[in-house]
Each structure stands twice: as structure tokens, then as C-alpha cells.
């Protein structure tokens, strides 16, 4: 199992981080940390970009992130037309990582505050597809 069912549209089926999807199906959003130099990565990377070591470990992104910016997408790219409008948000996490994800459908623009706490969770989409999204708190 690779990235075939990831996101509204998946662009690459095969990647060395396919374990991410297995964990996502099991309810966890995972990142990687290099055992050699300590670099943390999301999107996860099984070969460290800093020191090029392949000795990495997976960890679950459980911490609270802080929303740094967001945007309301009114015109989705090809394949996303039926999803729009949706809100993309960027959040920084304790582990030194940054994640771009959609805000959960229940969160409206009125609810958004820069600096608000967000956590990241798997979300089931139509047609058996899966992604991750932010929820409040």
C-alpha cells in the first residue's frame, strides 16, 4: 500500500515513506527524526536531508501547533473543484516541524485566530480516500 488513496488527488503512488500511510490508516500522523543529527521532518523523510543518514525513527505528531497563516481557497486546482471552498492553514509545532493542512470542515473563517492551537489528525474522505487535517485545541 502506497499513496494511491492519499488526499483528494494523489500525485505519486510510490515513495519510500509508504509507512506513513499505514500509520495514517491506524489513526496516527507521523513524522521522522534522524537518530544521528536529530533533524525532525514533516513531510517525513526516511533519509535525512541534513546528514544523509538513513538511521531515522518515526514519531507521532501529538503536540499542539500554533496557526501562523491561512487562506480560503475558492477555486480549487484540477481535481479539487468540488472540494472548494476550503481553508488551508499553516501551523508550527514544538518538534521544530511545520505542517500545511486543511482546517476541519467545522471550523469557519470567523473561528480563526492567528496563534490559535491546532492538532493534526487523520481524516477519511469520500471514495475510501484518506488525508490529515487540523482540528482546534
Amino acid at each position, binding site marked *: 500500500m502506497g499513496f494511491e488513496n492519499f488526499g483528494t488527488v494523489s500525485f505519486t503512488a510510490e515513495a519510500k515513506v509508504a509507512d506513513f500511510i499505514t500509520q495514517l490508516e491506524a489513526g496516527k500522523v507521523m513524522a521522522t527524526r534522524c537518530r544521528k543529527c536529530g533533524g525532525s521532518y514533516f513531510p517525513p523523510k526516511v533519509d535525512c536531508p541534513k546528514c544523509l543518514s538513513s538511521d531515522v525513527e518515526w514519531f507521532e505528531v501529538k503536540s499542539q501547533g500554533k496557526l501562523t497563516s491561512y*487562506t480560503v*481557497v475558492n477555486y480549487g486546482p484540477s*481535481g*479539487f473543484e468540488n472540494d472548494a471552498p476550503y481553508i*488551508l492553514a499553516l501551523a508550527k509545532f514544538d518538534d521544530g516541524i511545520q*505542517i*500545511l493542512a486543511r482546517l476541519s470542515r467545522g471550523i469557519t473563517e470567523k473561528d480563526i485566530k492567528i496563534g490559535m492551537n491546532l492538532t493534526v489528525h487523520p481524516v477519511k474522505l469520500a471514495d475510501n480516500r484518506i488525508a490529515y487535517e487540523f482540528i482546534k485545541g
Partner: protein
Amino acid sequence: MADRNVCIVGAGMDRWGVREASIVDMAQEAAKDCFDDVPALKKEDIDGLLFASSYCGRSAFQVNAAPVVAERIGIQPTSICTRVDTLCAGGSSGIIMATGLIKAGLADVVMVAGGEKLYTPQRWETYYSEMASIDHDWDGAQGMGLPPPFFSMTAQDHMKRYGTTKEQLSAVSVKNRRNGANNPKAQFQKAVTIEEVINARAVVPPLGLFDCTPITDGCAAVILVSEDKAKELTDRPLVYVRGTAQASLHSMSMNWPGEDLSDWVHLRTAAKKAFERARVSPEDVDVAQTHDCFTISEIIEMEDLGFCKKGEGGAFVESGQSDFGGKVPVNTDGGLLSCGHPFGATGIRQAMEIFFQLQGRAINQAKDAKIGLTHNLSGLNVEHTILIYGREP
């Protein structure tokens, strides 16, 4: 052998916009316009062609485009003939590479051409293709189309952090669309009022229709030669490549290197190096073409290029400091907002405008311009590319 100084001696482009023409048709039109600009040049003397295009393999279904273009414009390069891809900075990358080849004596007369055929018969294909230029596996799968949502987030951040206003964003569009109104090659040749910009329909708030560069078909071409050859070919003032830099700091995904989205640390890195190499400072720049893919981009570029202090880009533009009569006229030919943005061609179009400005023959002429600068950001703000030109080497 000492390094040779390198000059631009000719420049041209086709009419940009929605074209019923192939990428090779447009390259031929741009090359013809360029040859007409330097009548003393014999086509047989051209020993190099660098063709900058990112999407030709996808939307024009033409890979290895350089030999096809060479054949269509009737040249037979013997030193170099290849394609360059740096997305929005491809043309500028080509000029940097041609400068190096000529300096080193590996080529003598190099045409740097570039462009894109982005409109496809099926509109969905044009928009789907955009995903090829971001981290499509991750950001793309969330519905992050390139590039308005990213620059919307950047604009929101700059507004929150520095109090930049929608009026200040709009001032960029009003200036650049006015400059493009008399540019016969521009995609849009119509000025807009500040009310029209503010009230235009939203694309991704706070960015509206006139805050965004359009999708464009088009090509452009310049000829670079050694100083000695330039003196043979033209009686016009010589325009030298004085300093260049290209800084890339992070991946195509949202792993942002700066403290915040308004902090373009890689632009400052590129600027420092380019100014050092050109032996000038931001105050010396008489005219500049900076990458106004979105109005917010030009505002942050004023700051991180060193034309004004961090956070003051909005006021700088609004008070006319980036207009004629101000500190440094910016995007004097209309910029991306008027001319459009066929990625590989844009850096060449900017070089052409600086070339005309420094020779005193631009359509909207800056007074007594002796030092000119071009700047591109490329992709999802992953790289910054700067070239500085001068009337002296």
C-alpha cells in the same frame, strides 16, 4: 587568459498573451525581433543557444526543445545548445550560465531564449499541470494549487505583522498596469484605477483579480557576447552583466526557512552576493524589474532587496518611491502584472527592459539610468535570482 567582460547586444520578444501559436512559433517570433535589434550580427556567429522553458515537456509536448528552436530560427550552435529549467527564473538562469560560458571562453556569441505555451485546449490540463511545480505529494494532495493560496497566506502574514493595507497592495497593481498600458508586447495594455483593483473579484483573499499575474503564452530572446565582440556589433552604449546570484534554501514543500512567511531570507542572501559581485549597493540602483507575480511579492522584494526597511514596503510603494521620480522606478515595462508570465521568458523580458533602460531607449524611460537590477523568485518561493547590469563593467 583574464576573464572577459560580457554584454547584452540585442533583445526581443513576441506579443504575449493567449496565443494561437506553438512554443516554437513564438520562439521564432522572439528571435526575429531580437535579430532585428542588432542588424550587424550574423546568425552564423551564434555558437550557443540556451532555451529556458519549464513546461515545454508537458503543455507543449516538446522535450529537448533547444535543437528544435535552433532549427526554426536558422542557427547551428557549436559550443552549447541546451534547455534550462528554473521555472520562473529560467531565463535569468540562462543569462547567468551564458555569462559564465563567455567569460570562460567556452562560447562567444550566445542567444538566451525562453518561453512557455501554457494554454492548452483543455483548461483543466493547464491547472493540473501547475501541480508539477510544487510538492505535489504532500501540499498538492491537500489542494494547494500553485501559487495564489501560498501568496495569499504571505499577504495575510505581512498585513498582520506590519500593518500593510489592501490599498498598498493595490498601489503596486495601479503602477505596473499604468506602465504596461503603452507596452505593445504586454498581455494587458490597460491601466486600472485603485477602486477597480480594490473592488475586483477575489481570487484568494486578500488577493483579487488585479493582484495576480495571469497565465501567459510567450517567448523572449537576448544575445550575449564578449565586450570586444559587442564593440564590433553596436554603436549603442554597452550594457554589461556586473553581478549575479541565485540562492535556494528549501524544498518545494512548506518547510519554510525564514522566521515567518514575510521573511525572505534567501532573497537577502542572493541580494548580498549580487551587490557584492557587482560592487554596488541598493542605493546605486537606478531602475529595477522585480518579480511582481503578486502585489505582495513586490512589496516584500522592496524590503529584502534593501530598497527600504523591513516592514515598510507597503508605504514605500504607496508613497511613490518605486515609481518614476521616486527612489527607484520598479517594473517600468509593466512587470508580470501587465506583461504576463510565461515562466522561462520572464527573466529575459526583464533583462531586455533593463538593457533598453540603460541604453536610454525604453518606452517609459527612467532618467539617466546607469545601474539596473532584475529579480525573480521561482516556484513556491523556493529560489531567488538576481542580476545587476551596468553601463560600466
